[in-house]
């Protein structure tokens, strides 16, 4: 489904590559977790795959479509849920979703039904006409998710979709993503919640310094590493315990 070949990104003025000669294949129907410490290159990789960032070198294709030649088709094919809320605070949830849905070319009547359905599933229907600025962090995260899936994407990129939310909101989000995956959406997500990734993902890749240091099914990775009781142990073994502070 997604084929990444020697993909690299070096930001202007930076001394090192954020993503360095990365190769990766993600299969259709997978829930793929991109894990790594701060500054490892997860968001940069997701941004390139979402057509937000130009790679320095290398290439990738999604469903056989090269990113350079099929930009418009790819935008219709993929969905992106950014780490930021990326919503209009003074508009209501419904107005935000109607707008972003319209930008995918979805007609008003179809959109209204879909929005209603998503809001109900994510427990937000009674707040549909409230302005986003009155929402809690967890509620905003859920609206942020809906805005990225209104056009029923075949591939969904999520950059830390459960960061800063309570356990209940996280549970609802993960359950909704599982439902989407069950309907055929391939999911690629980044997270710092390793327990969540261990339980949620069919496969993970641990990235550090822009390259993949290991990848595979979570359970297999844990089994392959002596003494590792969970994914966090594997993660620390592969990326070290040194703090990763960047300024």
């Amino acid at each position, binding site marked *: 489904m997604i084929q990444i070949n020697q993909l690299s990104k070096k930001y202007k003025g930076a001394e090192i590559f954020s993503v360095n000669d990365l190769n990766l294949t993600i299969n259709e129907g997978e829930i793929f977790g991109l894990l790594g410490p701060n500054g490892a290159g997860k968001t940069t990789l997701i941004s390139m795959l979402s057509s937000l960032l130009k790679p320095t070198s290398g290439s990738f294709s999604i469903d056989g479509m090269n990113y350079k030649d099929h930009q418009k088709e790819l935008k219709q094919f993929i969905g992106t849920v950014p780490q930021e809320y990326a919503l209009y*605070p003074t508009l209501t949830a419904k107005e935000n979703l109607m707008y972003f849905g319209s930008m995918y070319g979805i007609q008003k009547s179809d959109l209204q039904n879909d929005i209603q359905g998503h809001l109900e599933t994510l427990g937000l229907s009674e707040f549909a006409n409230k302005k986003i600025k009155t929402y809690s962090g967890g509620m905003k995260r859920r609206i942020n998710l809906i805005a990225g899936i209104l056009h029923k994407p075949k591939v969904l990129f999520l950059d830390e979709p459960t960061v800063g939310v309570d356990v209940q909101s996280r549970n609802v989000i993960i359950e909704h993503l599982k439902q989407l995956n069950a309907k055929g959406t391939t999911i690629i997500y980044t997270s710092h919640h390793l327990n969540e990734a261990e339980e949620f993902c069919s496969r993970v890749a641990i990235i550090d310094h822009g390259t993949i240091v290991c990848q595979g099914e979570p359970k297999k990775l844990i089994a392959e590493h002596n003494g590792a009781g969970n994914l966090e142990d594997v993660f620390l073994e592969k990326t070290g315990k040194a703090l990763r502070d960047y300024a």
Partner: protein
Amino acid sequence: MHKLLASAYKEFLLLTRDIGGLAVLFLMPLLLVITITLIQDSTFNTIKQNKIPIIVVDNDKGEVSQNILENLKSSKMFELSEQSNEKLVQELIQNGKYQLAIIIPENLSKDLNQKVSENVDGILAQFGAIEDSLPHKTTILQTKEVKLYFDPATQFSFRNSIKSGIDQMVSKIETQAIYKAFQEQISDDPTEQIFDTESFITFKEIIPNAGKKALIPNSTQHNIPAWTLFAIFFIILPLSINMVNEKNQGTFVRLRTHPVSYGTVLGGKAIVFLSVSLIQFALMLLVGIYLFPFLGLPKLDVSGRLPLLFVVAFFAGLAAVGLGLLLGTIAKSQEQSAPFGATFVVILAAIGGVWVPVFAMPKFMQALSKMSPMNWGLEAFYDVFLRNVGLSELVPEISLLLLFFVVTTVIAIVYYNRKNAV
């Protein structure tokens, strides 16, 4: 089209949700035009109706100084008070107690009369009108200087108009002295009127109206177009701030993942902000027509011109929106867009001739003025308001405004696409 309309609707919602911002957007331009017109109109009336207090130091005490004093009194512009101490007068002017002091030099009457008499005698002797065996006498007299002291705070234009008025008055007195000297030489009867000393050439102001109804230019007819245009261009501030906010909120980034062109996103903004500028314009006209007379200001005359005025406002609004879209695309923060936008509009207004007429500018600035969209808009408004032109005469100016919109918007789109090329 569906995406464009959805974008425009979103912009409409964003605008209407910010009631404070909306009030500022509509009320501030109205406040601006009312304030400026009130100030200009009252200044005009003050100069016309109120007298300017001036001091005169009469060191001459003669016929000429008397004549000057009478002329000053009869001009109705000045309220005269006399002083004898020039040093004290200087202090009063320096302190701003008076705007002007006139110092009439000693022996002005005596020397002027002597100079004129000698000149007249000389002329008449040349023509043999004086049968005098004595040779013609010429005394070397020092030029007399009427000193003017101005309050340092008075404006250059005020000084110039006063200097020109006094110069005119002194010339008239000098001419009359010459006539009088001739009369004394030619006739023995002082009551006999040989010369008509009244001015032969007078001025009459005619307003060219090309056979149409004559329009009397007044502060309203001048201010509404100038300041309305200023307000229309100020739309670049809220528009660019709106775009910078979208960047900060992350919504612009989200839109980049959608299959929607930047042109469509800008189109939605252009529709709404152009509508805002047209509503602003309509409000300005309503204020000029209905509110100004209540404030004692001249009523705005739009009779027969309304469609053309809206045509100009539409294209001026387009030019302003184009500039706002470009600024919003390039600016990264409100700290960049707001001060730059405000200052740039003021510069465009200055160059465009909103404050100082273009003809009064130096040559270089006049050339620069021709490149200001505000100048094109202002000229188009003046054409409609004051020159009674038709649509065909407006074509050059509105074409330039349209071109400006197209160019700025295309630059914005190209810049955005290059910046975000993947």
